Structure formats: structure tokens, C-alpha cells
């Protein structure tokens, strides 16, 4: 599982951080920071949920 984010589109809702804190963080301005672009398989559900909930469609999952 490969995760990508598009920070310029981020609106700092913070939900990705709440759902998958191992994968997503926020910088000093609250903009998304990807902690792990290749998260472990057991995080797939959480990352999928974060991507679905993100209000600005910033998170993209690439299934290889």
C-alpha cells in the first residue's frame, strides 16, 4: 500500500491524524504531513477511512 498526500489542498480538518496517527501528522500550520508513505498492511483500514473522510480529497491510496 502506497500513500500520497497533496498538502496545498489540505484544509487542516485533522481527521486523518485522529484516525491514523501512525501515518499522518500536521505541521506547525496544521497542514498534513505524511509520516509513512508505505504503512503496514494492518493500517489499511484506517488509512482507507482517513482518505474517505478527508474533506479536501488530499489523501490518495495507490494499490500496487
Amino acid at each position: 500500500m502506497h500513500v500520497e498526500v497533496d498538502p496545498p489542498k489540505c484544509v487542516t480538518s485533522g481527521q486523518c491524524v485522529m484516525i491514523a496517527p501512525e501515518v499522518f501528522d500536521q505541521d506547525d500550520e496544521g497542514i498534513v504531513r505524511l509520516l509513512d508513505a508505505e504503512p503496514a498492511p494492518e493500517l489499511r483500514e484506517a488509512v482507507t477511512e482517513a482518505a474517505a473522510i478527508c474533506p479536501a480529497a488530499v489523501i490518495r491510496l495507490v494499490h500496487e
Partner: protein
Amino acid sequence: MTEAAERGRSATADDLPAWPMMKPAGCPFDPPQALRALHAGRPISRVRLWDGSDPWLVTRYDDVRALLGDPRVSASSLNPGFPHTDAGFKERFRRSLTFLNMDAPEHGRIRRMVTPPFAVKRVEAMRPNIQKLTDQLIEDMLAGPKPADLIQELALPLPSLVISELLGVPYEDHEFFQDTNGILVNRNSSPEEVARGVDALRTFLENLIDQKLASPGSDMLTELAHQRVAAGELTRREAADLGLLLLTAGHETTANMIGLGTLLLLEHPDQLAVMRDSEDPRVAADAVEELLRYLTIPHLGRRRVAASDIEIGGELIHAGEGIILAADVANREAEVFTDPDRLDVRRDARRHVAFGYGVHQCLGQPLARVELQVVWGTLFRRVPTLALATTVDRVPFKHDALIYGIYELPVTW
């Protein structure tokens, strides 16, 4: 019937239903019956507003999310097709323009000036202080007479204290800004009353900004004054309008959730017990999401206007036409939330659209979540015998306000 509802009635000279729709007296926690009927039978249709205009009303969850996330959908209230639900609100958004009613790129540029304090980690760092404030307010209530008005004792003061501190607004002025905001959110306020209210609040905030320029504190208004106004990125007036938006949105919404949610939980003692009997923070977190979903307090719909033609659900929305997104009924969709009309604080309600969707999704949501988790995580444990000191049918609900809630909630213990 309120004057506004009468206006709504008479505006329907044809068969378009009037908007907004009122919740019936017996079901104060549910979307209006007529709205649910549209959701079931005509999910995209037109409604009639106070000024005779006929914007689209969108009710299905997928359509609400799709349109709120669609770049062809504009939030600009300056557009003539923008569906203002009342004359007073039209005046409010004409007089005080903020990023709430802007599109990209201005929206993002200005929103980002105020987002840093709402980052999850920073709001989490506020939790101990929010807990202390909550504890103190509850102790003060318990030391006072019974019955007590939960709105005055806890629901209003907690978020007001928190946002005042964050912004750098003196809490001593809370009656002024709470009362003035009350005028701004009431559907029956005339444009003149709203204009006076906006001007009063703006002047108040402009004076504060001047004070912060002279003697800085460690708050958001100071930051806006020194980093944006002094740098020429924002005018003094724009900064004051931003402060106005955050101050009003920052207390009114959460106060309404606290009042309404507490009453709802008192009416569902089995659900209240789940919250009271668990110290697991995830239980409180899940419960807050469910209460947000179930109540969806912005009950007049999200308001937008099409910037170009949009095909959706078999209809064609033309450029320039108004669109109202009814998040409350979308949050009660069975295909998304099983048995949606059942309050279930253990369900996973995270996909709700109570905070909206798209780039305008509520900026204060992390703070709202922490405040609500703390209040409900504390109240029922500290006051296990909390009870309604009246009957539900006597509780005055804010049917006529921009954001749904309760005016007065008499409780005892």
C-alpha cells in the same frame, strides 16, 4: 407560528415547498417530516425562499458530499443566486465578508491564517485547561440554586471562555458578544438590527486589534495584528471580520451542541449510561461523533451557488442557481448509517457531514470535539442524578435560529 414561518408559507404561491422547514413540536431532535419525504421521494428538487427565489435542495448523502467537494460549486455570497435563507442573514454576510463565503484561491489564503491553533496536537494541549474550566463551571452550578439553567451555567460559558482565551477577547465582554451574536443568528432579525450588531462587534474587535498592536498578548488576535495587519496582508477591518467569525462560530455552535446533546442523552438514559460508566476516551470520542450526526445542528442547510452547469441525480443545475445541501437529513440515511434514527453512541459515525464537507468544512472541529468530549465525559459522572426539571415539550428550542439548539434548559439533581 413565527412571523418567519408565516412569510415562508405565503411565499409559496405555487407548489414549491417553503424553505426552511420547521421541525414538528413532537419531534424536536429529528429533521422535518417534509424534508424526510423529499429525501425519500425527490432527493433533488427546488424550494421557495423568503425572497421568492427557488434554489435547489439536495438531500442524499453522496450528492451532498459530491457537491460540497465540487470545484464548480461556489460559496460566494456575493453571487446574486446565493440562497440566503432570510433577509437578516443576507445582510450579515453582505456586511461581514470572510473566507466562509469565498472561493479558491482567496478562501485558502485567508483560512490558513487562522488554522494553526486548531491543529489536533494544539487542541489536545488545551484539554487540561478545558477540563479545569468544565470542572469549575459544574462546581459553581452545584453550589447554586436548583433548578439551574444548564445553558447559562455550562453550555454557553465553556465554549465562550475557551474561544475568548484563544482569540484574546476579554471574557468580561461575554454578555455583549453573546447577546449581539444572538441577534445575528435569529431569522427574525431585521437587516437593520443585523447591520447594527455586525458594526458593533466589528468596532469592538477593531479596537482590540489596535490594543494588541500596542501591547501584544499571546493570542490569535495579536498574531493577526502583528503578522498580518502590520504586514499589509489583511486590513484592520478584514482582521476584525475574521475575529468576529471565530468568536461567534466558536461559542454559539458548541453551546448549542452541549445543550441539545445533554437533553437528548437525558431522554436516552441507556445511552447516557454508556458515557457515564466508561472512562475509555474512545467511548466519549465515538459518542460525540454520534451526537454530532444525530443532531446536525446547522439545520438551515449549507448554502452554495453553481459556478457552472452541473449534472447530478438526473437533474441539471444551471450556472448561477442556488443550492442548499441538507446535511441533517443526509446524516439520517439508512444506506450510510444502519438504523439511522436510532441514537447509538457506540456506532462508528465518523463519516457524518455535521461539520460539512469540502474545503469549507468546519475549521473549529478539533476544538469542538475536545470540548464536547470533556463536557459529556465529566457532567454525568460528576452529577449522576442530573435530571430535566421540566418536560421536553416545554423546552424552548431554537427553531428560528441559524444554528439549532436550546434557549433554556432547566435541570436539577
